[in-house]
């Protein structure tokens, strides 16, 4: 058997320096050109992902988090267009890549696991065929070698390799999602983008899969961009978290800090929208109003119509910039900026 397919050799030689970002997103702007008008779904978004880091993106439906996932993998289709900004992977600009370069880049360097992925498996192909397809498209190996690798991958994600000839309908939802993760791991990418990977699953299966991903990450050292609306899960799983609202990142900070002391009023209210199974049983308020229609977003800070602490005459006029409010921590809020300025004066 070829040596490149033994478990140890799944490890790619990682040439990328650990202290430099693996992925750099700078001032990204994505628009949907719809009949109702132009929707700026992602507006001036910047963030980094370092090697072996889990960065979480949270926000409500329509806040732009999935659009970012699709932009990074260049999977956006019309009417969605990237209209500005840069996305660099290991220094290389993804937005400049030609279609054939992209084919080599996806799966090889960046893989993506979508919420509906477990339903995206081809129903008439066996698991073996679907995994070996990906391997054989990218690597010059025999069918036998690819099958060996596929069995190994199933083992890695906790599926009995003897089920390799099963068809998707013979597997439960949780097992299908594991297969999708196995395919994502097939070429040992440096970054895996997971867009609501467990949302359609029951909570026990979700926990099994999240723990599986965690141990795989420890073993193989890839980075993850983890996208979900479930803040509790995100805080548990991520190193750093970005909170999105109406197309913008409003706060980004280490997970533990965001959980302990959210700074942006939206983050704070969002945290206060989740009932928990421990701690005091108190009345939670949620957030009054609804997320805005991005065809005509609110002026100034996009959260101001729902914000209970907005500064009259400021927040509805001036869009706040994402500013450093501590080491490794940023927020886009006039009130927070004022507080930070006050602290610095004292």
């Amino acid at each position, binding site marked *: 058997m070829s040596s490149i397919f033994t478990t140890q050799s799944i490890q790619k030689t990682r040439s990328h320096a650990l202290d430099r970002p693996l992925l750099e997103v700078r001032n990204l702007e994505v628009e949907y050109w719809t009949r109702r008008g132009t929707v700026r779904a992602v507006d001036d978004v910047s963030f980094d992902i370092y090697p072996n880091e889990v960065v979480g993106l949270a926000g*409500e439906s329509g806040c732009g988090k999935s659009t970012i996932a699709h932009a990074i993998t260049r999977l956006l289709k019309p009417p969605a267009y990237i209209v500005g900004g840069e996305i660099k992977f290991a220094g290389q600009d993804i937005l400049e890549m030609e279609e054939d370069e992209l084919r080599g880049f996806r799966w090889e360097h960046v893989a993506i696991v979508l919420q509906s992925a477990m339903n995206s498996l081809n129903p008439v192909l066996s698991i073996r065929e679907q995994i070996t397809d990906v391997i054989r498209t990218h690597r010059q190996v025999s069918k036998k070698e690819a099958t060996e690798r596929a069995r190994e991958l199933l083992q890695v994600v906790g599926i009995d390799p003897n089920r390799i000839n099963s068809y998707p309908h013979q597997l439960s939802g949780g097992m299908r999602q594991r297969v999708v993760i196995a395919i994502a791991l097939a070429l040992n990418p440096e970054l895996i983008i997971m867009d609501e990977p467990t949302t359609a699953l029951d909570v026990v299966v979700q926990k099994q899969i999240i*723990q599986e991903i965690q141990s795989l990450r420890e073993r193989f050292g890839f980075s993850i961009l983890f996208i979900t609306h479930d803040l509790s899960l995100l805080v548990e799983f991520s190193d750093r978290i970005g909170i999105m609202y109406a197309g913008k990142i409003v706060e980004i900070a280490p997970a533990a800090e965001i959980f302990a002391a959210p700074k942006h009023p939206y983050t704070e209210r*969002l945290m206060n929208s989740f009932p928990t199974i*421990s701690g005091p049983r108190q009345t939670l308020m949620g957030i009054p109003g*609804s997320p805005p229609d991005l065809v005509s977003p609110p002026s100034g800070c996009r959260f101001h119509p729902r914000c209970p602490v907005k500064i009259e005459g400021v927040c509805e006029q001036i869009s706040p910039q994402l500013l450093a409010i501590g080491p490794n921590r940023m927020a886009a809020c006039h009130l927070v900026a004022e507080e930070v300025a006050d602290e610095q004066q004292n």
Partner: protein
Amino acid sequence: MSSRINDAPQPLLEARGLTKHFVTGTALRRYTVRAVQDANLKLYPGRVTALVGESGSGKSTIARMLVRLYEPTSGEILYEGRNILGDKGRKALLEYRSHVQMIFQDPFSSLNPVRRIRAHLERPLLIHGKAKRGKLREQVNELLERVALTPVEEFADKFPHQLSGGQRQRVAIARALAVEPRVILADEPVSMLDVSIRLGILNLMAKLRDEQNIAFLYVTHDIASARYFADETLVMYAGRIVEGGESEQVIQNPKHPYTQLLLSAVPNPEKGLRTGVTEDRGEVPDLTQVGVGCPFAPRCKHVMDICRREMPGVTQLSANRWTRCYLYEDVAERETVAAES
């Protein structure tokens, strides 16, 4: 919240031994899906009972039987102590539904897209004979007021697509309220809504419980929301209700091994990722295959021989607390013996 369980002597709606089998497959190969087996529950005025379970556990089937969308295979449904399963015909159903209403998960498909909100609320008033001559407009406005869709006149003239998910679910609640029901069965009423607006809907229903004394059945997969909203919580697994009691007790001190597994899997930032269910690899059983024993037996780390042979009966752990698990049977027996001697 906690004392409400004891204060309510007479259940408004009760299920006794409720069972639903669906027969599927082809003429040659029939399968029986045992969706719900021997479900017992009581709903009281001014109290919320949560039915918690994962997808396919049978929780929605119970709600649908209670609102008479599905005919039970066996068992009884008692409204104010009277078995209503014998009542047939449109008139009896209409009468029953003027007391027992249902709210569905999907506020996008449960409203008619070509009708204004006003029409959605006038219809139940007219059908159930609750409309007062010349007062219909006021009645609709009042319903919208109760679910906080203000300014009411403005909302009454809108179409469903002009409303957000949360606002549509408020319309669905207002529509249920139109007939002045005493029981509302809410099947995952917030799970399709954005997180920031879920609380608003739960808080609205809590207000209706408190101010109008409505009995709620809250069907959900989210046990944290059950803790928030429900006075009593019942836990379902593969067609069986396996544990029940005051919500806080069930959640802080789960007894049934399945409830313990479920709670250990709920994301909890305070405890972190490394606690919980690593060794569990089990899956919910195929409901055409579940046999006579406890459905959780194949996954249970405490499994005994008897668990595979026979479903355990109800073990009363305290006044408001019970489970169906052999682990607790002899504990209860011992305590009974101790109390008697």
